């Protein structure tokens, strides 16, 4: 029995401890906002927060998060200033296209801006290069992160 927390709520998982965290979130907990894209930490669609870090849930065994808190896109606090700024910027810049990768993009962007309110272009690239988007929304993601940073008072 593996005990951990998802979005602050205690959860227990009794099946295969090797199950990737992604599939525990999606199949056992019904949290389908975290997406399956590649299964080997190449695309970032499955990005969640563990201890404030953006992590790829497809490549973390559920046994590895025992006792930890995992935050998913569903658990982002709407009133959190960073979350609010990122989502508002995403809508303002009309970022999304198909939208499938966007929960992962947003999780990576929130993790970045939570730590760095004024990321440089290189820092944005570093934080976001693990998140693929086949629709090519990258230019708008860049713009939206800068917009969010500006609204958070970040100065470069």
């Amino acid at each position, binding site marked *: 029995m593996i005990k951990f927390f998802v979005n602050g709520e205690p959860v227990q998982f009794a099946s295969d401890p090797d*199950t990737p965290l992604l599939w525990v979130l999606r199949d056992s907990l019904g949290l*389908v906002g975290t997406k399956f894209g590649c299964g080997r930490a190449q695309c970032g669609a499955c990005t969640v927060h563990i201890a404030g870090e953006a992590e790829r849930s497809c490549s973390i065994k559920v046994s590895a998060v025992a006792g930890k808190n995992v935050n998913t896109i569903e658990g982002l606090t709407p009133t959190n200033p960073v979350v609010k700024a990122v989502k508002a910027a995403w809508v303002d810049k009309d970022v999304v296209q198909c939208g499938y990768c966007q929960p992962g993009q947003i999780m990576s962007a929130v993790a970045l801006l939570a730590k760095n309110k004024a990321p440089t272009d290189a820092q944005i690239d570093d934080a976001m290069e693990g998140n693929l988007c*086949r629709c*090519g929304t990258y230019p708008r993601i860049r713009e939206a992160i800068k917009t969010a940073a500006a609204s958070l008072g970040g100065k470069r």
Partner: protein
Amino acid sequence: MIKTAKPVTSRRAFLKSTAAITGGLVIGFWLPERGGRAFAQGAPKAVHPNAFLRIGKDGTVTVIVKHLEFGQGVTTSLPMLIAEELECDWGKVRAELAPAGPEFANLAFGMQGTGGSSSVSNSWEQLRTVGAQARTMLIAAAKLPVPEGVPLKAAKDFKLIGKPTRRIDSLEKVDAKTVFGMDLKRPNLHVALVAHPPVFGARLGGFSAEKVKGIPGVTHVVETANGVAVVGKSYWAAKKGRDALEIQWDSAPELKVSSEGLMAQYRTLAKQPGPSAKKAADPNAIKAAAKTVSAEYEFPFLAHAPMEPLNCTIEFRGDSAEIWAGSQFQMMDQGAAAKALGLAPEKVRLNTMAAGGGFGRRANPASDYIVEACEVAKAIKVPVKVIWTREDDIKGGYYRPAYLHRVEAGIDAKGKPVGWNHAIVGQSIVAGTPFEGFLVKDGIDHTSVEGVSDTPYDLANLDVTLHTTKSAVPVLWWRSVGHTHTAFVMETMIDELASAAGQDPVAFRKGLLGKHPRHVAVLDLAAKKAGWGTPLPKGRARGVAVHESFGSVCAQVAEVSIEGGAVKVHRVVAAIDCGLVVNPMTVEAQVQSAIVYGLSAALHSEITLKDGQVQQSNFHNYGVLRINETPKIEVHIVASTMDKPTGVGEPGTPPVAPAVANAVAALTGKRPRVLPLGKTKWA
């Protein structure tokens, strides 16, 4: 909010405008009268009432979107067409995706389908008419027959069309509330993964599920036409079960294709006479050329690799079935599913799910992943979602075909082209599909030669030969279809001729495009905005390309450098003439998208085969563009002379690879002729 629409038959529309109108009205008899339909399949005789529109008592206007939403923004642009004529409050407009049904035919295809950058253009008159009919009926406030010949607004009176409009679906996608096919939840839903043959066309010799037994959560192991499915109560159970299968595959020697072998065969074929796509008036004219350039170009197979791996959910109820899939060809998939399930098509309801990208992969005339899901569902008789892993997707075929082009072109002493012999070798995308009848003429698959045999350049004595090959590798259209390779060859060869003639590449092109003002206009605008001819920092160069596809013309100027032997693209400036613009924000987004998609293929992506096996498996070895490699992209829209919208989703893809290649040539003196450029170390 994007929702999957409820069945038409149970829908009741109660129109109620903000004024005091009572009673229920039904809207939407649209009879497509225009010819040119490609298919007779269920061609709509009369569209069902309310097919496209529902007005709620609270004034909410719900538009039923007949096209698949997979990123291109049709859940915004198509409602805009109706709302313009209906003159309703845009803030109250919602979108729902239509299920499979003949009333939702693409008027350019004559069957339901999303592709060919045609979603807006085929709906242009149809949906404005629906909006105008609804408005007429609302004003009359009576149960009228659907009015015929309703006047449509003149372009000068548009309030919404042409206005930058944000997407309807942004917020739900930002909040991760959009339900993609992958996310669908149903009672007792099982998950299946299918082991496919490692070599295309290989047959199942035998298999043992001995090691699958005892894996918790696995419920069924069943044979399908193209493999062995393992079904479980979760993805992970099915995955572990599939990994534990022991399978023997039988593959005939002729199936053991290699990319190198194919290209060698193509190279030989290109030098031989073949079926003509265009005959030169004087095939010997090139012999009198002052200068000739000859070149061979190689293009690999390409996977579409949409972010959402393929999946299909089915509830097979014995005498009927319900399917959920992000399909680009709903009715074709519905028909294929019915056949696989042994049901009449009307007994199969196909719900269109929001799709996480597609780029052509979900428009497969073979309905491969849909039929496979049907086979599993029929065998196990429990609700099942068949999921393809990323490896299944990358290795699963239905690629943009590999092609080889061989060109010999000559100019006279003044730089005017006098002869152009062009051979194209590769598989036909439409052979053996229902599209063959109208896309293959006299042995020439139009999708193999589009962009070459119909070039707008004034090329004297253009001669085009097509060698259509066959292989075990399944092929399919991929964003911009034939233009993915033909634009590259035409635009790099034209550039090479400009260079041979000692002329500026933009001026040289314009000199050959005298009868094509749209091409000249986009070239001029892209060149101006990119600072064509102005100095660049050392180590950088610009390249240009222009190409027409799907009724639109797009020019691009790329700025590149070489870093560590690799091509780095710093900036792409695009100018597009896409006819009458419905939503400039969509146009900008789609051109950006098309450029990023094209750059992935230009720089990184290739599927190669060795002994019949695909050598790539996931994004670590099937490279696609990441944000750190994404250039600054600027999109400029030319004020068009056209009074209708033309394509937007694809026309931005073809010019980017040749623009980059021409910049690389300007910088290095070497002409890129093999894609992706990442195969070559540049200096």
